[in-house]
Each structure stands twice: as C-alpha cells, then as structure tokens.
C-alpha cells in the first residue's frame, strides 16, 4: 500500500515523523508505527487541555507493554480517558468490518477524517493496510472534490455524516455505483441515508463504535436496526449496552492512573436488544453533545462556565437543527447578575476544546430551578 497526498499530487513514503501536524504526516507516522510494532500515542494536538494533560504524564505511565496505540476520548467529566489498543484489536476489527462489505471490491481508500482518533487510524489507515490498497487523503475536502473521487470505480470512502449531508445538498449529477461510503462519529439520520442512496446510487455503512469498545454494530442505508459485528457479544444492564469483543480495550488511563478493564464493557448507550446479534439504539445515558466527532458532556461545559467569574448557575439543553451540518446547538441558560458574553465564552471553550466551533445561544437573566436534592431541573426568566 502507498499514501497518496492529494494536495501535493504525489505519493508519500510511510515513515517515522516527529511531531506530525498535517493529515498526511499523521497517517505516515501511524502506519510506520503500526507496520514496525512501535508504540505511539495518538491525539489531537489542536486541543490545548489534552496536550497539557499528556505532557503532565510520566512516559512510564503513557507507554504500556504489549500495546500498539494509546488513543484519547474527549472525556465526559473533564479529563480525557486514555484507551490502550493492541495491534490485534485493530486487525481483528478491520477483518470484521471487511466481512460486512465483502460484496464489493476496492482498489483504494479515500479518507476525509484526520488521523488523530481511533476512527481515522483503525478504519482510515488499518483497513487499506489490510486490503493492501492505496490510501488517498488531503488536508481539507470540499464536497465537490469528494464527489469526483467517489465516482471512480472501487473507491471505499471513510468519512463522517457531515460529508453525506453536504453531498446530498450539492446533488451532483454523478453516480457512485461502484464505490461505498463508511461513516461514523455521529448517527446519520435515516432520511439522509435514503436520500444519498437515491441521489448517488451508493451504499453507506454506518459504524456504531466508541474508542473504548471499538466497533460494536453496523447498519446499511435505511436500516434502523444495528447488527453486531462478527465476534461482538452484546447484552444490556438497566437498558445500557454491554459489549464483549476482541476489539474492546483491556487497559485505560484514567486521571493519570492505569486501570484494567474487565469485560463486558458497559457503554453509556441506551439500547433495546432485539436478538443475539441485533440491537436498536434508543439514546445516550448522559447529556452528550457531538462536536467534530467528539462526545462532550453538557455537564462538562456547564462546569466550565460556572467556574467563570460572576456566573452563579448554568443549565444547557441541546437543540437539534437537522438542516445544518452541525446539527446540535447548545441552548445555554445562565443565572448571573452580570450576564455571560458570547465572545468571552467562545474564547473559554476554545481554550478547553481547541479548534472546534461549538454552536450555542446564550439566554441570560434566567433562574435555574433545582429539585429538592439540588439537581438542576429547569429554568425560568427572572
């Protein structure tokens, strides 16, 4: 396999890169480490809080024997969780994925996602490695550019719902009949999947996964029910999905401490189990917003805002806007004498979450109402 840099229009060697910053560098470095069994820490260097946390950790803690990669979740309670994965985790997972799309032949993979998370590496890099086909990528894709690439026969596109929705909006007069799209990081609304199939005569397989568990289930096009991947055992406890599989991590790094994971792994996803291999996703146990593929707890954002000077209490609700590529908007209700300024909040969120722009609307002049045990339950105008 080779890497094709679409910006420079040339092939790039798979090589060790110190401090990789571009997508091509990240991909080249990760593949080099993977091929040569060199442990590597994969993280998004544009997130200042994460960079600070990793830099504060001793190398003996970060590097654990027998593991290939250390990934990081965004963390729902403040600090991100480190997730250790073996090479076997990634290879078995890629094999399970390829079984589900064995009806098609691919001669290359085009990846729009960055190589700083498990989805980019495990699917965008390890899958073409296993298929022994070239991986094509560029720093930033336009929907038009992706359409041109997807129209070429035998292309497996590794992408996100943002691009599926964007391609639906541009409605190019072109078909991707001999290509296939993989999408993950956020659910693709059923109507968008249907529309994509109708517009482009192309199948989309949605991967339901998390950093800790790896891939859990998949569904294609307008299917509503998820099917567990080969090797994945599913169950539930109090309606929460429990998963055992060869892809689940065995070790995590939690607040600087290494913890062993005893299977099955309990997720935060509320599900209905329909059969041994089938389940339906009903929701999430905590109030999580998806921004740039990362799950961020609204509780975490509430805590960040409440730590700001002059803010007494904050309650955040998530509003859905199906029209937008960023389809979740935070409604921020603020109890404070001086009020919360949007510009100040943007700067604070940027400090914590880096270069992602979180959509929000601030409602100042509110009183946050609480239950008898102090839990925030609502708001009213003062």
């Amino acid at each position, binding site marked *: 396999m080779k890497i094709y840099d679409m910006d420079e229009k040339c092939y790039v060697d798979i090589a060790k890169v110190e401090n990789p910053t571009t997508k091509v560098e990240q991909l080249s470095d990760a593949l080099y480490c993977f091929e040569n069994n060199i442990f590597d820490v994969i993280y998004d260097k544009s997130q200042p809080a994460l960079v600070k946390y990793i830099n504060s950790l001793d190398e003996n803690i970060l590097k654990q024997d027998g593991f290939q990669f250390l990934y990081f979740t965004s963390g729902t309670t403040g600090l991100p969780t480190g997730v250790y994965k073996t090479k076997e985790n990634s290879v078995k997972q890629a094999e399970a994925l390829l079984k589900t799309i064995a009806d098609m032949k691919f001669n290359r993979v085009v990846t729009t996602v960055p190589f700083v998370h498990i989805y980019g590496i495990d699917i965008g890099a390890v899958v073409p490695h296993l298929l022994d086909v070239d991986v094509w990528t560029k720093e930033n894709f*336009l929907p*038009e550019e992706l359409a041109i690439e997807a129209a070429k026969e035998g292309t497996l596109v590794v992408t996100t719902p943002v691009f599926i929705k*964007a391609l639906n909006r*541009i409605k190019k007069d072109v078909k991707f009949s001999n290509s296939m799209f993989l999408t993950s990081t956020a659910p693709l609304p059923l109507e968008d999947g249907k529309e994509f199939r109708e517009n482009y005569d192309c199948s989309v397989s949605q991967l339901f996964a998390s950093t800790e568990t790896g891939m859990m289930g998949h569904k294609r096009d307008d299917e509503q029910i998820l099917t567990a991947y080969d090797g994945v055992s599913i169950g539930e406890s109090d309606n929460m999905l429990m998963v055992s599989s060869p892809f689940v991590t065995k070790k995590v790094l939690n607040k600087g401490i290494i913890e062993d994971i005893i299977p099955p792994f309990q997720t935060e996803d509320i599900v209905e189990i329909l059969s041994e291999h089938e389940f339906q996703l009903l929701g999430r146990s905590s109030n999580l917003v998806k921004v740039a593929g990362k799950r961020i707890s609204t509780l975490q954002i509430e805590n960040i805002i409440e730590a700001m000077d002059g803010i007494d209490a904050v309650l955040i609700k998530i509003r859905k*806007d199906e029209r*937008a590529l*960023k389809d979740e908007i935070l409604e921020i209700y603020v109890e404070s004498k001086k009020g919360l300024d949007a510009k100040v909040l943007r700067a604070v969120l940027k400090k914590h979450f880096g270069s*992602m722009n979180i959509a929000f609307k*601030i409602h100042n002049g509110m009183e946050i109402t609480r239950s008898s045990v102090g839990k925030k339950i609502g708001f009213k105008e003062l």
Partner: protein
Amino acid sequence: MEKHLITTTDLKTKIIDGLGLEDIGINEIEDDMPLFGDDGLGLDSVDAIELTLIIEKEFGVKIKDMGESENIFASSNSLVSYINENQAN
C-alpha cells in the same frame, strides 16, 4: 446586464444565519478579521464546508479547490472579493 456586487454586510448576514452564530452581531465581525483560527471568528473545518455550500446557494459561486480556500476564506473582505470576481453576470 450588470453584476450585483455584494458587500461585506451581505456576506456577514449570510454567515451568521447559515452557521447559526446567533450570538454574534454583524458589527462584531470586522472586515479584515480572520474567519478561521484562534485570532478571529474561530470557525472550524465543518463551518468551512457549510460556508462553501452557503456561498454556492446564496451567491451562485463555487469554490472548486479547498487548496485555494486559505486565501479566499482569510477574511470577509477576501471572501467578498472572490465572490464578486467569480459571480456570473
């Protein structure tokens, strides 16, 4: 027929509406303020895709190569210049 040249105010209105920047006023976006990055409006890569779709829909101008986008999206001024230069008559 003459082209209808757009102004930075036209563009900013579309940016605020299209990207759901409900808490930002037109006056808060300076004409030469960077649209992306820490020193400016702080838009991200998903906003960039949304912005290309908005510009095509609202002004009929396609941005064909994301490689050019760094200069085009540098500020409201540069984006307005690009739109006005590339608008069909």
